[in-house]
């Protein structure tokens, strides 16, 4: 039976739902970080054995998140689904490039989805190639390694830091990450001087940043 996709999924009709607000609303009752899952085992199975069950576990968990992200960037549900499928196909095809020591699966997926959006929706030729190049340069040098334990601790810390952002900082980060608004567009929309937009983002980044392990 054909039913209306949008009316069945109220969240999809509200693409402005904020992950910041979500993060806030769920802060205390759930033990911080309790719901995090370590995907490195599933990814290793995909990489080494082309394991479909592991791959589909990853897909089932992340596909709705990736689609919501792409919708927030301005794609229709149909385009978001198409790009989402493409993102997971890429994950399947490039699984051997995934290195858990260099960052988590969700960071990797975020980059894949963002790159597809910039490549195919914003039509920026050469973007993907430049990102590949940056990966190569990073690989060739002694960049900091992550372990899943550090990753988990960091996830918990980062959630706390997101909660600690001021309302305006959270709003500007959301407009940057989830609406892909330029500094100029944010300045116009909020009637705020460009310099103020930048300094808010600067401070927000410093607050969220983790002063890290193996920093050179």
């Amino acid at each position, binding site marked *: *039976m054909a039913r209306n996709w949008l009316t069945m999924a109220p969240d999809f009709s509200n693409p402005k739902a904020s992950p910041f607000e979500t993060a806030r609303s769920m802060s205390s009752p759930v033990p911080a970080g309790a719901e995090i899952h370590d995907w490195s085992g599933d990814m290793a199975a995909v990489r080494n054995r082309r394991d479909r069950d592991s791959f589909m576990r990853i897909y089932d968990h992340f596909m709705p998140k*990736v689609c919501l992200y792409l919708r927030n960037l301005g794609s229709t549900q149909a385009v978001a689904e198409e790009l989402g499928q493409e993102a997971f196909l890429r994950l399947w095809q490039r699984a051997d490039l995934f290195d858990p020591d260099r960052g988590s699966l969700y960071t990797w997926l975020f980059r894949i989805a963002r790159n597809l959006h910039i490549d195919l929706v914003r039509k920026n030729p050469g973007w993907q190639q*430049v990102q*590949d*190049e*940056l990966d190569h340069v990073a690989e060739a040098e002694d960049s900091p390694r992550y372990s899943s334990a550090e990753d988990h601790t960091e996830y918990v810390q980062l959630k706390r830091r997101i909660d600690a952002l001021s309302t305006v900082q959270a709003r500007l980060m959301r407009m940057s990450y989830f609406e892909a608004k330029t500094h100029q567009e944010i300045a116009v929309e909020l009637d705020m001087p*460009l310099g103020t937009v930048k300094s808010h983002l600067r401070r927000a*980044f410093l607050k969220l*940043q983790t002063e890290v392990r193996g920093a050179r």
Partner: protein
Amino acid sequence: MSPRHHLDHSTLVAYAAGSLALELAAVAASHLEACAQCRQRLHEAERIGGLLLEQQRPAQWPAERAATLRQSLLDRLDDAPAMPAPQALAAADSVAGRPDPDRLPVALRPHFGDSYSGLKWRWMAPGVHCIRAPAHRNLFLLKIGPGRSMPVHSHGGSELTQILQGAYQDSLGHFGPGDVADLDSDIQHQPVTLPGMPCICVSALDAPLRFPGWLARKLQPYVGL
């Protein structure tokens, strides 16, 4: 040599978020190719994006639709062999283990071609040559002769300049190869190139430059920046 002037954190956030204008992103990427420190910061900004992606709480998918998409992806896996790792362009260019000095940063190649020797410079003002990216008027290469001073100017919006060869000095300091000048609209500056060799840089603007002096104002239509 490691760069001493880096991308502003707000620029890195925008780059990671995919919200930087294409012209500014091309210049930022040419710096990222040269700067390990900014690549590390970028990675951190992308982690923030990844964690925010993970924290999204989408509504339950309609079962029928989810099943259709799931099956169609499974069907496509058979025809999707592992993709070979993308080729490292800069490494492929290297001559005897060193980067080929004639090759442009990878990020600039879609706009200006592959090599410095292939660039078709246009005269813009005495001692100043310029090439605009054909499809993007606010992205351009500048070649400024040694010991030249540019007119004092500020910016309507942001200016991002990556030094590719040579060097210049202004009130903010000394800018040499690999350095980036990530300038706010409130900064007024007058770069002076150092003697010896021309300074080649790539710049992007998201609004026209502003020249305060009357002479510079007269020049502006000709300079066209």
